[in-house]
């Protein structure tokens, strides 16, 4: 057993962090709220291997594991990189190049030429994320995965919400999801949901860590009563609670990634549920605490704290929320006594 990052994973994390620092600085990221997704920079993510990382080598990908993917997604979350990172990674990872309907999309996703969103099928009106930014939408349900051309949805009278909860997650109300064309079977759809929950939890980990970094830096610099506010225990202890949530969540996310790769001792479904439950509470709690540590400035558009919090809120409702997975874990516990 060695549950530390290996050298490759450390290099991966550093590489993605450096890419984010250079190409996804916060001004660039914020500009996408009005200008839309920066396709050139999205392609740079692809060129770094972000979307082909977990694509099998036989399909031209890098053939790396989910444990590697969570390390990457954590860094992207930390930098608030917007866009359908999880869906685009999933389509490249789970849809092969073997001539079926989705292969072109998967190929494009891996190379960064196709931006792919996702949505769990539900009846009636629903919000679809990133519709103006994406080329294709993958709808998942119990029967499989279904693909819809994004343009066809956009022209069907759907208009993006003027004020999405997260300014960097545009949402569009769609009257009814079309059936779409089937690109994968029910088993792949189940895998889609499980891996999607894991990668979303990894993004949430990055958001929690980023919100914590932001608060800690501010607490070191901001002075009141003649000293940095981080010297006061009321503030210091809040920061300690933030990093505690981050570290517990990190252990859960890394464990789930490792387990999905077959290098664990737990059941994959269980470990993913654990990660998503903790991600759901930790990311939002760290976002809120980051706002609080910033005081009045934390409630302004200018300070990034609200961006971490709002993204955390959105991600909680992607690939199953905390309550859903808590119910799943409880059912396992209670079921032992039935």
């Amino acid at each position, binding site marked *: *057993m*060695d*549950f*530390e*990052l*290996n050298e490759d*994973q450390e290099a991966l994390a550093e590489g993605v962090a450096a890419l984010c620092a250079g190409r996804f600085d916060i001004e660039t990221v914020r500009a996408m709220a009005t200008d839309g997704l920066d396709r050139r920079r999205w392609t740079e993510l692809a060129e770094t291997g972000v979307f082909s990382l977990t694509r099998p080598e036989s399909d031209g990908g890098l053939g790396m594991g989910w*444990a590697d993917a969570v390390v990457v997604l954590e860094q992207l979350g930390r930098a608030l990189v917007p866009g359908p990172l999880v869906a685009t990674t999933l389509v490249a990872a789970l849809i092969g190049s073997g001539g079926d309907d989705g292969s072109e999309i998967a190929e494009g996703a891996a190379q960064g030429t196709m931006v792919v969103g996702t949505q769990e099928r539900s009846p009636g009106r629903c919000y679809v994320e990133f519709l103006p930014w994406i080329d294709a939408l993958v709808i998942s349900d119990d029967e499989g995965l279904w693909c819809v051309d994004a343009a066809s949805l956009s022209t069907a009278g759907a208009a993006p919400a003027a004020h999405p909860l997260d300014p960097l997650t545009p949402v569009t109300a769609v009257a009814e999801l079309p059936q779409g064309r089937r690109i994968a079977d029910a088993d792949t759809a189940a895998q889609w949901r499980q891996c999607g929950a894991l990668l979303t939890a990894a993004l949430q980990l990055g958001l929690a860590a980023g919100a914590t970094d932001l608060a*800690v830096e501010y*607490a*070191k610099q901001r002075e009141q009563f003649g*000293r*940095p506010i*981080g*010297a*006061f*225990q009321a503030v*210091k*202890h809040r*920061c*300690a*609670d933030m*990093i*505690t*949530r981050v*570290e*517990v*969540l*990190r*252990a*859960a996310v*890394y*464990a789930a990634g*490792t387990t999905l790769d077959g*290098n*664990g*001792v*737990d059941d994959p479904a*269980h*470990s993913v*549920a*654990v*990660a998503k*439950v*903790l991600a759901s*509470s930790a990311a939002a709690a760290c976002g809120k605490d980051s706002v609080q540590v910033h005081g009045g400035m934390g409630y302004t558009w200018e300070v990034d704290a609200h961006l971490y919090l709002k993204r955390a809120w959105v991600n909680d409702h992607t690939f199953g929320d*905390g*309550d859903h997975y*808590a*119910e*799943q*874990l*409880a*059912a*396992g*516990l*209670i079921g*032992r*006594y*039935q």
Partner: protein
Amino acid sequence: MDLCYTEAEEAFRDELRAWLNSVLGDIGPTPADHTDLEARRAYDTSWQRILYDAGYAGIHWPAEFGGRGSTPTEHLIFLEETERAGAPYVGVNFVGQLHAGPTLIAEATPIQQSAHLAPILSGDHVWCQGFSEPGSGSDLASLTTRAFDDGDHYVVTGQKIWTSFAQVADYCELLVRTDPDAPKHRGITWLIMPMDLPGIEIRPIVTALGAGEFAEMFLDEVRIPKVNRVGDHNDGWRVTMVTFAFERGTAFISEIIASQRLLADLAGVARKVTRGSARASDDAEIRRELGRLEAELDALWSLTKRNVSQAQRTGMVGPGGSVFKLAYADARKRMSQLAERILGRAGLAIGDTLDLSELDHVGERIYTLTLTIAAGTSEIQRNIVGERLLGLPKDR
């Protein structure tokens, strides 16, 4: 990242399991009367002797000092398997095994080591800890128990508190003030105090749980030979801190496994308890809190493996131990609240929940109060995390 165990680690686990299976049948239950400390000493030390005879004593001690010299991962497996098998706890051997012994290994003279280490491993010597004082809790270095220089002896007068098992201990690791004029960390000396010396008076402290393993210790001109000093005169604070380098992230492994068992039992209780026509397990709030706690304990088990892996690579854990303790104490307190809600009026007595549960959720609810206090309060842990991990400025 790899959570799988190596072949050698699995072989160690198999061998240990087989051995536990062969010996545990002959071990009786822990003495029912928690206030009978002599009985507890006899029970705990006889288990220590069994470990010793089988070569499992001092699992984490270096082989040259009689230990098994196991890796941190083997130590984790040992603690996991002994807890899962329901083996006795370290109990009265705690201070000797986990604190005084490692300190002696790091700092004592060969003569002191040969006198004390083997009897700690075999369960012949029980140690207690004379660190805290009524006026020195979180601020331990402010301790005032005074040691005067008298030729080849120190003459010690003062008062110690929270000295668990002092009544049945043979030796005490004692911190004394040898220079009241020096800065507080530089006037402390570390002594081995035999508990049969004249001038030692022990009074039991009854805890909120009604148990009596705590004691306070009054020292009145106790003459301790200078050959019992470990480290230099006035260098006791450093000697004390050295022990923390032995921490390998394994401190709460038994607790985590035991907590998972408690939670599973609580889920069983939730299925039995009915309110009106519904079972407690039909209540979504209760179910989700069960699920969240399951997630937290599972993540804390993963965090333990991270801390142990870090220790395996670097030899240290660092503030990861404080992070763990904060999160663990929080999870356990919430589990206590949940147990209270589920049990309702069946939780009005310690040790008997009207046949609803196998385990003592009521006693645990009281015990859980210690988790944010003992071994560094959560307030102190948050200072450590804030200052050492996050680099926030001190408030002094």
